[in-house]
């Protein structure tokens, strides 16, 4: 009897706390539409099935800001979170708080080192600091141009040809504007969102005009360069002078709705919205790279995997294995199809699944092709403040309360003040 009891006890204890079972927790954000928590749950379940001695709990933590707050609060409170998906541009903050470890320290074998090099270089820029990799790309995006083919046809434009440069976009947009009998606009030519992530959209304009907004060390910005000012002038004029975009700021959150309801013929938006647009647009639409001025260009964006310092070697190893597993070509392909995010490695685009998807829906490959023109997302020390200074400048120019040159000059002065002690 006693023997039976102890056996039972061992079973119960054993199943709850198997020998050496590693438990991991991670936080992740979602910034686009669609039932993505389910996709994440499936990924986690798939990994646990293959690795029965690791147990992972995933915590959905809202948008990027919320996820950062929750993950940092958990770190401070000593709650376990060994890894997280956080904004790729949070890296300087995480470094300054000394919270993350470089992946180079964990990648010991030759295979691991090769894995670190298997991603698109453009996606690694935001996760690398002083030659070490701190962030592994996961839900990564670029900005792409969506256009409504029906609207193009109606305006007498070739529905298969998107504008390829700034002049073309402005001229096409002017033809795409539709007005009712009373002279009120019922369809705009183009919309570029200017709330929420204004700095991100602006990086695309600046890059297209040949300028990057910050240096690789994250301690200098380039907001007041004449070409950067010219980029903002182009954007501002679309609304205030050319009248092809609504005056005032364009809301990030409702823009997709505007597009699928045909209220704008062209929109710039994250590729992370691709699947959601595909599911709700009732007209044929195209996806193209952003138009060029001096060159093509778009910033990358989105979330990276980080591993936190507060973890045991065993946990770090398990987290490392999980991140390796979840970013493997097969899973990256699935994730890309479910969301529209860029699949993070060239190998993912060679998987049969993604190959087939891209051949049936070529729009899905645009973001990938654009990666060779991509620039890392704006990220510096004091990143929140620097970003807000730029956001405010952009919005001030768009709403007409300051000229683009004055607004950007003020933002540059502010960021120089903030970054003075990091040089």
């Amino acid at each position, binding site marked *: 009897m006693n023997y039976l009891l102890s056996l039972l006890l061992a079973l119960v204890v054993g199943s709850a706390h198997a020998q050496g079972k590693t438990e991991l927790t991670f936080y992740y954000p979602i910034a686009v539409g669609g039932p993505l928590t389910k996709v994440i749950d499936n990924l986690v379940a798939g990994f646990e099935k293959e690795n029965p001695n690791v147990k992972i709990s995933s915590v959905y933590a809202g948008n990027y*800001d919320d996820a*950062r*707050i929750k993950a940092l609060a958990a770190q401070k409170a000593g709650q376990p979170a060994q890894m997280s998906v956080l904004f790729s541009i949070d890296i300087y*903050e995480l470094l*300054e*708080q*000394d*919270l993350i470890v470089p992946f180079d320290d964990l990648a010991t074998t030759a295979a691991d080192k090769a894995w670190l090099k298997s991603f698109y270089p453009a996606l690694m820029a935001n996760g690398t600091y002083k030659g070490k990799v701190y962030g592994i790309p996961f839900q990564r995006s670029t900005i792409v141009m969506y256009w409504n083919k029906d609207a193009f046809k109606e305006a007498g434009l070739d529905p298969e040809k998107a504008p390829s440069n700034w002049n073309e976009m402005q001229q096409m947009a002017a033809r795409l504007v539709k007005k009712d009998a*009373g*002279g*009120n*606009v*019922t369809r705009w030519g183009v919309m570029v969102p*200017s*709330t*929420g992530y204004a700095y991100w959209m602006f990086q695309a304009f600046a890059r297209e005009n040949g300028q990057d907004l910050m240096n690789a060390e994250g301690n200098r910005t380039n907001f007041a360069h004449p070409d950067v000012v010219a980029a903002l002038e182009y954007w501002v004029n679309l609304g205030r002078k050319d009248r092809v975009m*609504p*005056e*005032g*700021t*364009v*809301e990030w*959150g*409702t823009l997709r*709705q*505007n597009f699928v*309801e045909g*209220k704008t013929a062209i929109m710039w938006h994250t590729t992370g919205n691709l699947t959601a647009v595909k599911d709700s647009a009732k007209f044929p639409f195209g996806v193209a790279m952003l138009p060029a001025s001096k060159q093509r260009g778009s910033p990358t964006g989105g979330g990276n995997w980080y591993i936190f310092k507060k973890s045991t070697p065993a946990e770090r190893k398990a987290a490392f294995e999980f991140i390796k597993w979840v970013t493997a070509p097969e899973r990256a392909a699935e994730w890309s199809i479910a969301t529209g995010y860029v699949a993070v490695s060239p190998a993912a685009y060679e998987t049969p699944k993604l190959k087939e998807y891209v051949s049936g829906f070529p729009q899905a490959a645009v973001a990938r092709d654009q990666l060779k023109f991509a620039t890392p997302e704006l990220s510096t020390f*004091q990143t*929140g*403040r620097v970003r*807000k200074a730029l*956001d*405010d*400048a952009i*919005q*001030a120019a*768009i*709403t007409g*309360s300051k000229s683009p040159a004055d607004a950007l000059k003020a933002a540059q002065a502010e960021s120089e003040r903030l970054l003075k002690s990091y040089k």
Partner: protein
Amino acid sequence: MRHVYGWLLLTPAAILLVAFTHYPAVATLAESFFSTGTAVRPSRFVGLDNYAALAADPVFWQVLRNNFWFALGTIPTSIALALLMALWVNGRLPARALVRMAYFTPTVLPMIAVANLWLYFYTPQIGLLDKVAAMFGAGSHNWLGSPDTVMGCLIAMTIWKEAGFFMIFYLAALQTLPPELGEAARIEGASRWYFFRRVTFPLLMPTTLFVLVNATINSFKLVDHLFILTKGGPDNASNLLLYYIYQVAFSFFDVAYAATLTVILLFMLGIFAVVQFQLIERRVHYR
């Protein structure tokens, strides 16, 4: 022995108050004299540096101005509306419960839900407001995207949300007023306006004070809608003090400066409370 027993009874409440109200307030004040620490640069005592930075921060002055207009826009109107609605649904009218409920509904909705709802009222072209305007041949307006209209939009939404809540207090107060007063006034031949001005309104003064305090606090406390509607934009035109504190603390991670702003907020609310209770209470008739 008796007073020990008394203190023991007070202990649970006292612990909660100290732990969650008094200690954080004092800690905030202390923190506002230090710099924000990171792993690389530990926090150090900086005296009044944070306050000097605050005085030189144009965004701080702007959010303060915004908050002033927001308070001025929401408080008197929502109180007047609440009183009006309460007087109306206190009278005899068909389907009274239904009307009362209709007025109260906005209050029970979470602010985030309300903001999402109103986001689709205000959205240019596809929003309700623009669709109604289009029926009358008016053009589309970028309500939340223009610094001229954004504050008005927030004020309108807040009034819609708040008035029903304050109505409940007025309604409760109205029902405690003795009916004899009305009867006496009618015998004396007082007009309804005169009766309201000289009898009802003065008797409602305690409620008005209570509502006023609440409305003032709310005008500084309610920022949930900013997360959904504007994020404080465009160019800080709709930014409010508490939302700015949130940005500084959780987006800029500047805990010390956030603490400094919080001290200012606490100080202002403290002053309001004292002024309201001291000055206005003298003119309030408690029975």
